């Protein structure tokens, strides 16, 4: 066994649903299926549950985006985060201490009102902060870069491992089987319909297969001829020695392409990005990203100059051209469902899993989920979202 809730012994020869990938997406989906009475479910992972991006991310949570599509999906998630500890009977350490998107340029400040108005229209409460308010909220910020911000008080962060473990235990209690150390080699079909998966532990039959395989989800798609524009993107993060509390909220800086928060233990956890995706998939960190990160965070928080980095790590995500996830049944392969292309897949998991489970069990696609279907990418109808902390190569 690798974690509490993981099934000992080999998988059965058939299930109603097989989910590939025991990351937060796969496990949350399994849990939501079980809640709807579908418990003959297997979640299969080649590694240990949470060993992918779900155990390597920045843990940040918000629903304050600028587009209707993102806002509504992530608002559903945020509401779920607030309930999860009680519902899963496991403390996911959700800390709704606020999520600040910092404005560091006049241009960013000028855009704030329109973004906040859109958020209000979509039912998400945010506050537009001026320079004085931002500096009061986060006094350690370099005043030259603290010109404004949009604060979502209900946002924050949760412990990524705890969220994975909570879903895993609750799904297992409800009767779901979760296997670690089993590689899914391909999806099988007959007459165009899904019949199951081929694995390193033999074939498993299932009428429904969910691809929640994270970075390698595209490889699985290839085995059934599903061609989607998915790329790999590698990200790095650092954690420092514990320091006195100086940062109460989660903070994202589009200007620095960075996001950070301080843990209850006092560690500063932060990641920065560069324009364009790093499509390599090594889990080793690099000296240039260590310097990129240190330079940016010291610029933003001058007092961090004397704080020591203990550890850096890397993770990989799968990414679509509009950075939005793909949720729904794959075009042309009935029974093959996708929850892929997630760059904000930690904060999005509770809501997405609920919608996906609803769609799988009822056959009807909920309105909030519909815009994220794969067909949009094939038709070139991209979702426009302007508050993401990522820029593509072309835009830079």
């Amino acid at each position: 066994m690798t974690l509490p809730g993981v099934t000992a012994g080999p998988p059965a020869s058939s299930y109603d649903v097989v989910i590939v990938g025991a990351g937060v997406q796969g496990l949350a989906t399994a849990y939501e299926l079980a809640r709807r009475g579908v418990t003959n479910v297997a979640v299969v992972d080649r590694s240990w549950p949470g060993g992918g991006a779900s155990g390597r991310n920045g843990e940040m949570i918000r629903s304050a985006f600028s587009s209707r599509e993102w806002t509504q999906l992530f608002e559903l998630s945020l509401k779920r985060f607030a309930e999860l500890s009680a519902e899963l009977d496991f403390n996911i350490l959700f800390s709704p201490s606020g999520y600040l998107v910092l404005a560091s340029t006049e241009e960013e400040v000028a855009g704030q009102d329109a973004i906040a108005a859109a958020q209000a229209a979509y039912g998400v409460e945010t506050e537009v902060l001026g320079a004085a308010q931002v500096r009061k909220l986060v006094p350690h910020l370099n005043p030259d870069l603290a010109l404004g911000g949009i604060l979502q008080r209900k946002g924050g962060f949760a412990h990524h491992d705890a969220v994975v473990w909570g879903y895993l235990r609750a799904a297992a209690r409800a009767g779901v089987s979760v296997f670690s150390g089993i590689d899914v080699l391909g999806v099988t079909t007959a007459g165009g319909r899904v019949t199951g998966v081929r694995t390193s532990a033999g074939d498993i039959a299932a009428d429904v297969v969910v691809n929640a395989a994270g970075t390698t989800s595209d490889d699985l798609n290839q085995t059934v001829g599903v061609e989607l524009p998915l790329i790999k993107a590698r990200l790095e993060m650092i954690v420092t020695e514990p320091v006195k509390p100086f940062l109460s909220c989660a903070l994202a800086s589009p200007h620095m392409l960075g996001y950070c928060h301080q843990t209850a233990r006092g560690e500063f956890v932060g990641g920065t990005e560069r324009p364009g995706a790093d499509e390599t998939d090594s889990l080793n960190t690099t000296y240039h990203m260590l310097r990129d990160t240190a330079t940016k965070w010291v610029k933003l928080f001058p007092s961090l100059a004397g704080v020591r980095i203990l550890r850096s790590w890397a993770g990989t995500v799968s990414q679509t051209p509009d950075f939005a996830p793909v949720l729904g049944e794959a075009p042309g392969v009935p029974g093959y469902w996708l929850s892929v292309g997630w760059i904000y897949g930690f904060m999005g998991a509770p809501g997405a899993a609920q919608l996906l489970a609803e769609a799988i069990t009822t056959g009807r696609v909920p309105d909030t989920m519909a815009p994220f279907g794969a067909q949009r990418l094939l038709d070139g109808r991209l979702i426009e979202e302007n508050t993401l902390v990522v820029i593509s190569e072309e835009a830079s």
Partner: protein
Amino acid sequence: MIRQPFRRWRERTPGRRRSAALDRRTLVCPCHDATLFDLRNSWDEGYQHPETLKRATAVFMGPCQGKMCAKLVGNVVAELQGGGEPEQRRPSVRPPLFPVRMGDLVHEDEVGGGAA
């Protein structure tokens, strides 16, 4: 040969299960105050892999990044697995090798993105 810190103690008390009270006082990871009791408890719950045990107990993740506790944890894991060779697998050692002040890594030319 790998030193086995609990070997002498084990030889003196063959087959005897130590007490929870003693386990609670046996510090394995001084950085994060993780005791033998914590390790044993997490193992019994099902965190039975060096990577997941690390996440459950915070061993390896303190200021020394496991330099002090790695061998001890390896021995405890070997024992929990039912004896035999000390567990040699440990979670990846993550850079930097020693804690480094952020200020010492600042390098303007290295920055990418809007901030550059």
